């Protein structure tokens, strides 16, 4: 399947892009993260401390064990600092 993968804040900066289209068979967010880390050092570095990474699937905050079936958009970002 094809997924839009988005990166924000320091994840965007470390990976060097804000959005990309990913062809993947990952079943969960964790699987997707493993695939991305295996690609290149900059991904591996960006995801090296998952405790400081949050994930949204189709714009809803979720957890790393969330399934990706029917997902169209996955976003990774640090803990939010709004307000």
């Amino acid at each position, binding site marked *: 399947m094809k997924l839009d993968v*988005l990166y*924000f*804040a*320091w994840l*965007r900066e470390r990976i060097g892009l804000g959005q990309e289209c990913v062809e993947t068979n990952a079943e969960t967010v964790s699987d997707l993260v493993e695939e991305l880390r295996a690609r290149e050092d900059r991904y591996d570095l960006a995801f090296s401390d998952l405790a400081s990474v949050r994930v*949204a699937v189709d*714009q*809803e*905050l979720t957890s790393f064990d969330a399934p990706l079936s029917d997902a169209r958009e996955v*976003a990774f*970002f*640090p*803990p*939010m*600092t*709004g*307000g």
Partner: protein
Amino acid sequence: MPKLRVQTEEFDAGGELNLFTQSQFGMGAVVSFSGIVRDVTGGLQSLEIEHYPGMTERAIESILAEAVSRWDLGDALVIHRYGSIPVGAPIMMVATAAPHRSDAFQAAEFLMDYLKSRAPFWKKEVTRQGADWVAAQDHDEDALKRW
């Protein structure tokens, strides 16, 4: 019914408060919160705020709906900026209107607590030395537990 604006432009907190208040009927209590860029370390030039277009609106609308369902509110307003914001300028504001003051106060605090940790905004502090992402604070995450 609740109103939401996500924008780069500066806004006039007092003018927004008056418009919000004038649009109410039968509400005895109006509470507002404004967040201002604060120079904590003495070298801050501006704040850069990044957000996640689409999810930002969804997240805040869901927070607003939750507030309306929990308290007896006439109305609520959230304005949040993104982009570059200089020291002393307003970042965001929240306003709530209710028949009674405790609902207006509680709903405004609830909205702020959720906006801090659940709306997809990220702040970067720009100083003459460079720029650094603001770390999320444990006490902001902890603040959610009381609701």
